Structures are given as C-alpha cells and as structure tokens.
C-alpha cells in the first residue's frame, strides 16, 4: 500500500445506462497538494466528485482514502453522510448554502457530526448540549475570522451576495477538520478580483489546515496559478496528469479543448 497519497482513485467507472460518464479513471492526490481536475464540459469532473463523496456509488473501481491510523479506507463502503467524518468535505457547483440559517449557523451545520448530545439532551436543553454548542460556536467564529466573514456572522444567508455565499461554502468545509477539501468550480460567477483573492485563500487554507485540496475549475488562470498538479480528462477518460506546465504543453489536452487542428466539424 502506498502511504504517500491522501486519496487514491483506481479504474473508477461510473455508467448511467449506456452513458460512460467516468470510464476507467485513475489518479492520486498527495498530502498537502492542490490538485486540479480539468476537462471540457461534460467530461465527468463533477461525477468524479460525486463518486468520491458517495453521492453516486461507482459502477466499478476503487476509491481509497488515507485513514487516521495509516490504513486505507474504502470510500465506497461509507454512506454519503459519513464521508465528512473522514475529513472529506466538499462545496457545490451551484452554491448550496442553507438560506434559512444565519452564516454562523451554516457553519454549525458543518459541525453537526461533532455534537454528541442525544436527542433527549437536545429536547431538554441539558447543560451538556450548551457546553457542546459553546465549543462548536467558538470554533465556527474562529473559522469566520479566518475567512474574513465576521461581519456577516448573524446575517441570514438569504439575500447575501454570491461571492459571500461562495465563501460561506468554503468556510463550512473548514469546520470539519478537513483532510481533503473538494471544491467544485469555486471561481464560477466570481469577478477577476474575487478570483485572485480565491487563489490566495486556497493557498492559505492549505497552509493553515494542512490539508489537500481537489478542485474542478474552468478558470484556467486560477487552475494554472494554484495547482501543484493537474489531471485533465475528456469523456470520462484520462488525458494527462502533470504539472501546470506539462498540461499546457500536452497535445491531447489541447485537442480536447480546441478540437483537432485542421479538422473541421
């Protein structure tokens, strides 16, 4: 077993009827690495994310995550809501912030698994719940401070600007002792300044939380800027893995994005 990767994906296949969304894909994410997953629209990037986070159960293939004790954990054996316990947390392409809750409460949602108070303790508001609530609230405030969101602490997420909602989603991932943060198009809908800030933020998160980041992104500027390594896929199949320079120079990747030179269709 290789111990030098946080996430190891082997021959991952995800078929929907006859559609091969992901077809025999393999790559690994190393500890502390910012790893980019790119590909044209419909290449299967989000499907890969949904497989890792168990929203989809893969047709075949292995998804192995580096556990606490050093052994590898088969992600396919986990339920979708148990994945966060391992430190795998994700954001969504179309921001899924809980609009009926305040910004702080949105972070508490991500800390949900850290509450141990039983239902009865909660129904009676026993001191144990209050202690836990206090501890997790303080943690959430620390994250809000780190993300520069303290100003919005008690605002309802409903009606907040898009850029802030995206930040709340990222803040949420930090609540769960992250080991692998999965960002699905974090720059989509952001302006140039915000995208530049985002690049800095992703680096700061890696520094501060000592975690790996896996991201899908169409903004090539951001991908080439922050990623240590990039995996390019097309129609569910691997095109190339390498450093940003290698990927930029790769013929197959260019063809996938721009089409065959000299071939008109």
């Amino acid at each position, binding site marked *: 077993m290789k111990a030098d990767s946080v996430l190891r994906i082997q021959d991952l296949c995800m078929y929907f009827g006859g559609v091969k969304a992901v077809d025999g894909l393999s790559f690994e994410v190393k500890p502390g690495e910012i790893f980019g997953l790119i590909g044209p629209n419909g290449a299967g990037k989000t499907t890969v994310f949904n497989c890792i986070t168990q929203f989809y159960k893969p047709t075949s293939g292995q998804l192995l995550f580096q556990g606490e004790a050093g052994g590898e954990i088969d992600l396919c054996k986990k339920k979708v809501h148990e994945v966060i316990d391992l430190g795998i947390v994700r954001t969504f392409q179309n921001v899924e912030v809980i609009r009926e809750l305040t910004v702080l409460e949105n972070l508490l949602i991500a800390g*949900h698994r850290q509450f141990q108070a039983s239902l009865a303790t909660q*129904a009676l508001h026993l001191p144990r719940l209050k202690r836990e609530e206090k501890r997790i609230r303080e943690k959430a405030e620390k994250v809000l401070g780190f993300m520069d969101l303290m100003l919005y602490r008690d605002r309802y997420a409903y009606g907040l600007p898009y850029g802030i909602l995206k930040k709340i989603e990222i803040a949420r991932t930090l609540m769960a002792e992250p080991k692998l943060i999965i960002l699905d198009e974090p720059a989509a809908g952001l302006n140039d300044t915000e995208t530049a800030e985002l690049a800095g933020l992703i680096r700061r998160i890696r520094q501060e939380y000592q975690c790996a980041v896996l991201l899908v992104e169409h903004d090539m500027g951001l991908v080439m800027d922050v990623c240590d390594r990039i995996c390019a896929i097309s129609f569910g199949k691997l095109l190339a893995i390498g450093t940003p320079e290698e990927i930029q120079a790769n013929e197959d990747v260019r063809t996938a994005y721009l089409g065959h030179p000299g071939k008109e269709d």
Partner: protein
Amino acid sequence: MNQKQNPISNLLKKPGAQILLFVALAAGVQLLSGGGILPNSLVYALGNTLIYAIVAIGFCLLLGYAGLASLGTAGFIGVGAYIAYYMMQELGLPFILALAATIAVSLLLGIIVGFISLRIEGIYLAIMTLGLSETIRNLLMALKPTIKIDLNNLKLFGTPVSDTGSYYLILGIFAVLMLLVANLIQSPTGRAMLAMKNSTSAAQAMGISLMKYRLLSFVIATVFAALGGLLYMVHVRTMTTATSTLLTLTTSLNILGGVVIGGAKSLWGSTFGIFIIYGIQSMFLSKIQFFQKNPAFITMITGLLIILVVMFFPGGFAQIVWELKMKWQGRKLKEKEAAHES
C-alpha cells in the same frame, strides 16, 4: 452589539418562560369561567383548540423545518382516538396506559411513513399520505362507526377526569410538548432539519443523515397527531364518523392551513393560526346568528385568510410580527443615532 435590554424582555425570549406565561393565561381563563365571569363553553372551546394546537406543533416541525408535506394528519388523529376508545372504554384501562399505547403505535406508524418519505417527495408524498389517511379512516369506520367514552371510564391516576381535569390535562401536555419541540428547534436537530429542507445534498455532505431526520420528523408529527386524537376522546368523549369531520381531509387541511397562516417556522405562530381556524370559529363566530345559519361562511373566511396570508406574507403571522419588530427596532436605532448626533 451592546444589547442592554430589560430583564423581562430577555426572559420572555426563553421558550420556558413563554410557555409558563401561556399556561398561566390559559389557567386564568379557566378560573374566570369557574368564577362565572366567562362562559363555560369558552373553556371547552379553548381546550378543543389546544388539542389541534398540539397536532399543529408536530406538523410545524414536519412542514416548516423538515420541509415535508403531509396530508395524513387526520388518519393519525383517528389512530389516537380509536386507541383511546378501545383502551379506556372497551378494556377499562386507565388513561396513562392509553397514552403509552397511543405513543407506541403512532411511533411505529411514523417510522413507516418516514421510510416512505425517503423514496417519495413533495406533492407525491402529500398524495401518498392522503391515501394512507383515507385508508386508515375507512378501516376505523368499518371497525366502529361511532366511538364514545363514558365519563366514569376516564381515569387518570385512579380518579375520574372531570371537564376541568381534561382541560388542564390538555394544557399540561401542550406545555410539555411545546417545550420539547421549542428546544429541539434551537438545537442541532432543528438546524439539521432546516438544512435538509433547503438542500438535501448540502445536508448530506455536511454529515446529516436524511433517513434519521426524516424519520424523526415524521415520528414527531405522527405521535403528536395521535396524541391529539387521544385527547380529543378525553375532552369531547364521542365521535361519529358519519357526521364528524375529525378523520377527513378537512382536518388535515385545517391543520395545514393553521400552520401556514401562523407561520410554518414559528411554533407560537402555528398555535395562533390554529386559534384563528378552530378557536375563533368555535369560541366566537359560532355564537353569531348569521354564521349559525350559514356555517359555510366560516370556512370561507378561513379560505380567504389563507389566500391573503400566502399572497402577502408567505411567512404567516409570525412574519408580520417579525417585520413589525424589525421596524420598531430600526426606529429606535434611528432615534438613538439622532440623540447621539444632537
């Protein structure tokens, strides 16, 4: 952020204090009627309304927090009513055993419906629960078209329950359930349900098990509805399926209406909504001759109210109160700023 508010308004923010105040008021009404100042029928109607309020609190959690639509409330009420009848009238058992049986059976029923809700969502879930409710109603009707509990078969701790006794019993159960749900809402469970309502995928990614919280919300709503049925049989003591609307879709819709009018995310709002739908009708409107002659107009008023509220205040009365409060606070803030500048 310096919130220097007086201790009374701070205390009133606590659900425990709110409930105590409510219980004191409701007990006051009973005492006044005992003293002959208020009519006895008012207390009776109030007790009746409180029964539906209990059902509404459970429904509020289901609809407003878990975001699940159910039209099966009436069926679950029926289950409680019939368990009450069979346990107390037929078997002569004390209230406390009927209570335990009602909770046990409705708990199971809630789990079953909760499991179904994992597969069927939205409008289809509403239709499915409606079908289930109708099935239960027909089953119960076939079992016994009229149920009636004799006064001396109503025993709480060995002593027969009087009208006053049943009123306080309802009030007590209402207070306890209200406190439990109010606490749940302000704890991880309440947040988890809201998360589930807003985005199932975000909820799951954050570690919230849809199964756990859907089952829980259906169990609570079902148990509360069945308790409503049980208390109905303690309070009203008789029900004829041929004439009563208790087990029909009307009841399910009235509960839904009350919760929506009052504010699906507010327990007190929902209670207030139920008062509008059931209380005003039985306490005041039914005393007016015009409405006695034309009972359809009462339903019309309810219908109009629902339309108006949904159109202009989708958050119900709770939203109106909240908006007024915000305005009031904004004005006070401006006054403060003005005083500061001068």
